[in-house]
């Protein structure tokens, strides 16, 4: 059964509602990253400046596309979200506490708001 980008976010909400431990925070960061990534790619796949291939490299392309448009702060914010997602899934020896999770949510909110303002989401 197909899913949509918003399903990733709803799943993250359910995880947040039911659990409060570190593995839940990591799962939530990962799901929320994919939600925004899929939304952003879907929204901009047909943009003249985008080079999304729906293969490996599209995570990089998201930042590169924004950089080509001159939205370097947005590219920076997207990169920050991506880095925090990588830390959540790969850097298992580093602790991701509630504050680190709140930092991720702040980045996500900032990116979402600014991308909406530029009609990129």
């Amino acid at each position: 059964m197909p899913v949509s980008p918003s399903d990733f976010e709803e799943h993250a909400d359910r995880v947040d509602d039911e659990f409060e431990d570190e593995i839940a925070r990591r799962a939530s960061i990962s799901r929320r990253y994919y939600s925004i990534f899929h939304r952003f790619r879907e929204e901009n796949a047909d943009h003249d400046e985008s080079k999304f291939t729906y293969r490996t490299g599209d995570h990089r392309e998201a930042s590169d596309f924004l950089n080509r448009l001159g939205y370097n702060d947005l590219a920076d914010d997207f990169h920050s979200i991506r880095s925090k997602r990588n830390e959540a899934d790969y850097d298992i020896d580093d602790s991701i506490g509630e504050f680190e999770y709140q930092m991720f949510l702040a980045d996500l909110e900032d990116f979402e708001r600014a991308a909406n303002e530029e009609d990129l989401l």
Partner: protein
Amino acid sequence: MKGTINPSEKYESTSENAGRSQREKHRARNSAKALSATHGHHTTSEISTTKSTTLSTPPTYYEWKSHPAIDRELERYIKSDRELRQTVIDSIRTLTHEVPHAKISAFLEHDPEEPETTRPVIEVRDDFDEVDQYRSLKTKVQEIVRDAERGDAMVYTRISRA
């Protein structure tokens, strides 16, 4: 600030490191001798290439760096890109002045899922315990780095808690 020696590397001259340096010099001489024996006479450019290859192999006794906050891998990455190099250096200098209590470092970030993806990153590590402080610092750092960016160069930022 081309030509600055990183003090922390310059002065790590313990007897062990000094010994290592001597061994490296010895290896370099032996390597040059071996090449000479194999190929006979060298032209000037061949000798230069051999010397360069040998001396660029880490760890070296000390290494010239654009700024002490820049790690070796990023230094090599930005070496041939004048705009990016200047962007990194100017960003670090301004950040050091504008956010004096923070620890500044610059490195090359590798994406674990996309090996070909590398990003030059400046990390600012500071004390804060409110999300608003994090946002405020992030905005300030981004402004400074954006102001320093030249041409097509872009440097990514990371704000971390000390």
